[in-house]
């Protein structure tokens, strides 16, 4: 563990900005984008970025019980991992708790293909998605994102910033590429073609 003393109160202008940024992050209950921090601190984006680096140094794992993280397109404080046991004795995590396999599959579809409609989810999973979608909406992991242009205009869904935060993603770009999940698709294809050839014969 780094034994350097913490220097939270200095007269440097960047230190003053860092303290302001800390204050803003403490009052916010969701990640604050850099631009919002700069607007609230009434300072340049570049200087706020530098101040964030300073705050990040001070609030990192092993140095502080509060850790700065870049998540869901913004910056936020979270508890340090070493305090997770204590936190779990004090708080539940209703958003993450008992996410079913169906919910995770639906979440994956919405995260990768969203905004997408419930019929699209049903088509991919092959089973009705009504209850799962309602559950994810209630947890705040997905949200409505307008209506489809097709006749009927089904409601479209997208994942929320809370999804990114729960899964510790700075943005959706951090999700692995869908093409990397090919698995044994080629084997299945070959088997199906064998069956088709037998039926066609």
């Amino acid at each position, binding site marked *: 563990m780094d034994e350097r003393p913490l220097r939270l109160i200095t007269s440097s202008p960047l230190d003053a900005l860092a303290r302001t940024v800390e204050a803003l992050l403490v009052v916010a209950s969701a990640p604050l984008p850099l631009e919002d921090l700069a607007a609230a601190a009434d300072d340049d984006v570049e200087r706020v970025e530098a101040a964030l680096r300073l705050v990040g140094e001070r609030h990192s794992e092993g140095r502080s019980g509060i850790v700065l993280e870049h998540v869901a397109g913004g910056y936020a404080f979270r508890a340090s991992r070493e305090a997770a046991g204590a936190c779990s004795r004090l708080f539940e995590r209703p958003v*993450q708790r008992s996410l079913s396999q169906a919910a995770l599959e639906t979440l994956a579809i919405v995260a990768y293909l969203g905004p997408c409609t419930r019929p699209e989810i049903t088509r991919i999973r092959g089973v009705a998605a009504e209850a799962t979608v309602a559950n994810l909406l209630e947890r705040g992991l997905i949200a409505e994102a307008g209506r489809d242009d097709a006749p009927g205009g089904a409601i479209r869904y997208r994942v929320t910033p809370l999804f990114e935060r729960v899964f510790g993603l700075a943005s959706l770009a951090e999700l692995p590429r869908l093409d990397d999940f090919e698995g044994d698709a080629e084997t299945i294809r070959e088997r199906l073609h064998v069956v088709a050839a037998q039926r066609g014969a």
Partner: protein
Amino acid sequence: MRVAELELDLEAFEGPLDLLLTLVLKEEIDLAEIDVAGIVLAFIEELLGRDRSENGADECELGESDLEACGEFLVLVSALLELKARLLFDDEAAELAELEPEEAAEELARRLAAYRRTKEAAAWLTSRLEQEQDRFFRLGPAPLRPPVSRPVAPHDPAALAAALRVLATPPQAVSLAHMALRYPPLEQFVQRFRSLLAGRSRFDFENELGELSRVEQAVAFLALLELGRLDEVAIKQAAPFAPIRVERRDTERSSAWTSARSA
């Protein structure tokens, strides 16, 4: 028990089952809107209700006629479900039916691969969730955000000021002078002419107008006509536009005339 007469009270339909079937076949009701499970429940409730009334509260035994009804009902509901399924997935069914075995296999493989990818992605999310299970953070209402500025489109400030100045200037008061038509009461002239004729027997109307305004002249003329109507005076004019001569009627015996004279 007749299945066709089964009374239904569904969200989209209320009435006997045979009417529902007729409406569905005539396409006057959208089968997609009909809750088939509701029909099944209604049938079961009807069946249990009949059994209880016939065999007592605790015994539920199906008679031969009930078994027939069940069979008939099963056939009908199966048909309804098949119709509904076809309605819900008609395009897809048609697409797949037209495919050759090779193409169908390819399509199926494509769908299975898509689902496989979804499952893999869900597994990745699961492992991610496990890694992140010791991350605790504050959850609460949306944070206060800096107010969003909505700048207006660029405009010349001078032109804007000029436009505002026009709007800020109070409009000139509208003159209503032409509407203020002031004229003396008719009675004033009536009395005046009566007094005049009390002293002499005639006078020329023009001579009495003096400095009267046009409105007052008109009122004076109306007063003259009034006196004429009351038969107190005789109004004479030798020719058009000639002076109007007003004479007291010697035969006039009205009370007004007498009182004016005595006054």
